[in-house]
């Protein structure tokens, strides 16, 4: 029962954050903050699903680094006031709405058929130890490749953003 209440609480917060991000047409900072709300609610849902380590990483990476980077760039470029607003062509708006509804219905029909019961898991499920063991045994090659991707990303970001010192 507690779980159901918590699920609804975090689900409502997550969706409200997403909608808030979309509807904040004039203020980019407010959009970013709504997204933080969604991220934090999702982290709580992860913990509810016993993925404690991933939940903490979610807070650290998404709320603590990615959105902070967004805010940093928004403030650096003085882009807080969004004068662009939403799409102006009505045709595009209608098409976007139709497409979104289609995607939503398709996903909903797929997931509505799911009736698999939850597996029984022991206490160690989702702990740092178990996660680390999976990451450094079965998934060590993807892990190493991810580090190469990160290096490439860092170098790429510096090359792109660096001002030429003439």
């Amino acid at each position, binding site marked *: 029962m507690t779980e159901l209440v918590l699920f609804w609480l975090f689900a409502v917060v997550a969706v409200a954050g997403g909608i808030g991000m979309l509807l904040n047409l004039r203020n980019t900072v407010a959009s970013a903050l709504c997204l933080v709300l969604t991220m934090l609610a999702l982290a709580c*849902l992860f913990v509810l699903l*016993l993925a404690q380590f991933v939940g903490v990483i979610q807070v650290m990476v998404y709320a603590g680094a990615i959105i902070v980077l967004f805010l940093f760039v928004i403030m650096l470029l003085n882009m807080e006031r969004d004068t662009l607003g939403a799409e102006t062509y009505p045709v595009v708006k209608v098409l976007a709405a139709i497409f979104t*509804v289609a995607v939503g219905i398709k996903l909903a029909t797929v997931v*509505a058929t799911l009736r698999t019961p939850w*597996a029984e898991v022991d206490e160690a499920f989702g702990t740092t130890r178990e996660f680390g063991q999976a990451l450094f045994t079965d998934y060590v090659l993807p892990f190493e490749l991810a580090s190469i991707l990160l290096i490439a990303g860092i170098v790429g970001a510096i090359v792109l953003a660096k001002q030429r010192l003439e």
Partner: protein
Amino acid sequence: MSVPIFYYQALAAVLFALGVLGVLTRRNVIVIFMSIELMLNAANLSLVAFSRLWGSIDGQVFVFMVMVVAAVEVAVGLAIVISLVRNRDTVNIEDTSLLRW
């Protein structure tokens, strides 16, 4: 576990749809980026829920990889936005048609 699995999947679907809507209707590059992050997060929720469903840790490792990709994407993407603003003084996605000239 009193919450059925499809609740989680339905929530993931809703968040994903919101992200799609954001990418399609907003014109600010930064907001479009945020919408992509929202879609990635919806996928993450789905993966974590399935990982719990089958009682295997693999889904969580995938989420970890998704986060790495998201971090790299944001770093490079925002660097592109910065150079875009420096060169063209705009964050409107419709003004970035240089290659289509």
